[in-house]
């Protein structure tokens, strides 16, 4: 992407840099810097053993080129989390100004967390929400102030043994958000987190935990960007969300990493009775993304939905998808995925739908559409359905194709040049999902697609 406008970098002025490579000593030092309770250090060390023991997945994208000895696992860029942008070091403030976070915060956000390298360096939350008991902290601060909650839920949804990268995250996690929304509190404006990698060969391992108590609502938006380097960075996050009875959580991701970032993320939500979980997942950047946001429907009438959008250009592989696991009767799930591949990019949909024997009267619908814009590109669809109950209604549809000749012909007959017409058609194709993103991201997405389509001949 020549038009990647977040590709700038700032000089590094790190307070702590544990350097490249990972061993037990690095983990002990991270834990010591953070002054963690001993049980967290134990969790980290046992997760590290699991990380070493687990094999690299033999499916999905090419993970063989990640050099774990070159990755820098912990960088602390500033002294503490600030609540005024002006208190931040100049380089960091400038970065966020360029991305536009402080401006957005003034206009329409209820709270912001900004993570730079390994640490959350800025945080804010509307005074009114604080009074109503909403907790929005960096994960490290969350561990200090609410150790009991963290002990109860940390790793409950995504245990270190889940996969190699969840184990790595558990071993070296730093930063991320900790959110608690009290009973019946509905947060009207979104909370925003922004993740920025600035250093070369950086490994960012944020850990997010969201607990939405009964009848509450929260919308959480995360964005991510990084400078363009010739060497690779690694982003391996874990997100755990508990949606209690009657609560609703919407989690929106706009992943726009530069094309030298491996993005390997585990996201999972447990949804209890009558609760609703909505994942809105946009993958535009990164070299390789492997991410399958999942909903576990734990109690009757729980609902889950995943909207997934992926764009793969030259040198990119988006292996995205979703998982829905029905563990209780009368639960429903919906997964809609759209992907576009171009200039040799590869998109894959990988999904799981599971309905257990005791989960009767469940409904699930999965729709995946893919557009391939030129002959160098590739698209795959790998869904898996496992249904062990007879009283269900399951539908799955997937299609792969190119821009419709008739649509193109129609637009051209109205005098629209071909490249512009393709841009319009592609924008129309992603529109049902793009409109679910916050306005400025949706506009950004449309602009990006139009730019990408310029000069393309279908």
């Amino acid at each position: 992407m020549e038009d990647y406008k977040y590709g700038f970098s700032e000089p590094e002025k790190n307070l702590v840099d544990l350097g490249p490579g990972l061993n037990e000593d690095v983990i002990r030092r991270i834990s010591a810097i953070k002054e963690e309770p001993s049980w967290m250090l134990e969790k980290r060390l046992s997760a590290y053993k699991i990380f070493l023991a687990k094999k690299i997945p033999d499916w999905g994208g090419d993970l063989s080129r990640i050099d774990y000895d070159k990755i820098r696992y912990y960088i602390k860029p500033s002294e503490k989390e600030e609540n005024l942008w002006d208190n931040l070091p100049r380089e960091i403030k400038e970065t966020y100004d360029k991305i536009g976070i402080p401006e957005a915060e003034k206009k329409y956000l209820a709270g912001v967390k900004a993570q730079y390298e390994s640490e959350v360096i800025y945080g804010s939350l509307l005074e009114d929400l604080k009074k109503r008991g909403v907790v929005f902290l960096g994960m490290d601060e969350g561990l200090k102030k609410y150790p009991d909650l963290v002990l109860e839920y940390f790793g409950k949804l995504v245990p270190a043994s889940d996969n190699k990268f969840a184990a790595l995250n558990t071993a070296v996690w730093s930063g991320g958000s900790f959110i608690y929304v009290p009973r019946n509190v509905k947060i009207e404006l979104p909370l925003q987190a922004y993740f920025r990698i600035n250093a070369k060969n950086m490994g960012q391992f944020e850990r997010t935990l969201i607990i939405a108590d009964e009848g509450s609502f929260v919308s959480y938006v995360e964005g991510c960007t990084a400078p363009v380097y010739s060497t690779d960075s690694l982003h391996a996050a874990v997100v755990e969300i508990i949606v209690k009875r009657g609560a609703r959580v919407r989690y929106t991701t706009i992943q726009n990493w530069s094309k030298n970032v491996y993005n390997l993320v585990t996201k999972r939500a447990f949804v209890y009775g009558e609760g609703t979980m909505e994942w809105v997942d946009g993958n535009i950047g990164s070299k390789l993304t492997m991410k399958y946001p999942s909903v576990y429907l734990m109690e009757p009438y729980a609902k889950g939905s995943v909207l997934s959008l992926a764009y793969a250009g030259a040198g990119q592989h988006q292996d995205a998808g979703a998982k829905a696991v029905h563990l209780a009767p009368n639960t429903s799930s919906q997964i809609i995925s759209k992907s576009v591949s171009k200039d040799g990019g590869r998109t894959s949909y990988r999904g799981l739908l599971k309905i257990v024997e005791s989960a009767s009267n469940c409904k699930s619908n999965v729709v995946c559409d893919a557009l391939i814009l030129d002959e160098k590109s590739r698209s795959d669809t790998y869904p898996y359905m496992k249904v062990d109950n007879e009283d269900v209604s399951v539908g799955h549809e997937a299609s792969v194709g190119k821009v419709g000749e008739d649509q193109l012909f129609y637009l051209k007959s109205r005098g629209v040049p071909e490249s512009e017409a393709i841009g319009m058609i592609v924008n129309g194709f992603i529109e049902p999902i793009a409109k679910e993103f916050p306005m400025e991201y949706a506009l950004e997405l449309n602009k990006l697609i139009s730019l990408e389509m310029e000069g393309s001949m279908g």
Partner: protein
Amino acid sequence: MIRRELDLTESPNPLKISVGGKEEYIFSYYGDGIVSQDIQFDLVKAGSEVKVLGLILGLKDAKIDLNVQVNHLVPNTKCTVLVKAVLKDKSKLDFFGKLFVSKGAHGSDSFLDQRTLLLGDGVGVDSTPQLEILANNVKCSHKVSMSKPSVDEIFYMSSRGLFRDNAVELISKGFLAYE
């Protein structure tokens, strides 16, 4: 169009079929046994076309493991795969269906449809439809559905004086019917 029947219990496994013209294949299985069959169709000549129809009725502890793959290896080929299964009692179906379009196989038109009617308390379905598409000028899709008989249909037939069991039997027969 040449029509051929495949016998699932006596065919070699895996079964590989090269398709050079317009061909139609039908296979069916009724019973309570354990069946496992891989069938691969290679479309090797431009303009060739294959239609595949599979009909399955699983009874008791039947375990039916079916793997169908269609490879579009040259330009302008066409395929439709339709596999319909009625599962009764504790029967299980494990279905894997892959449509593959190789690089340069433009003009491929490919569709796979797998439907299951669920009739027993202990039935189970694993379904894995896959698309691997390495060309852009194509039209490829798949569709999977599973459900029990619709309440509306049973109600309609009950209102005409049919017992529930008879209504379900009629729905199953209609589901598996083909021309």
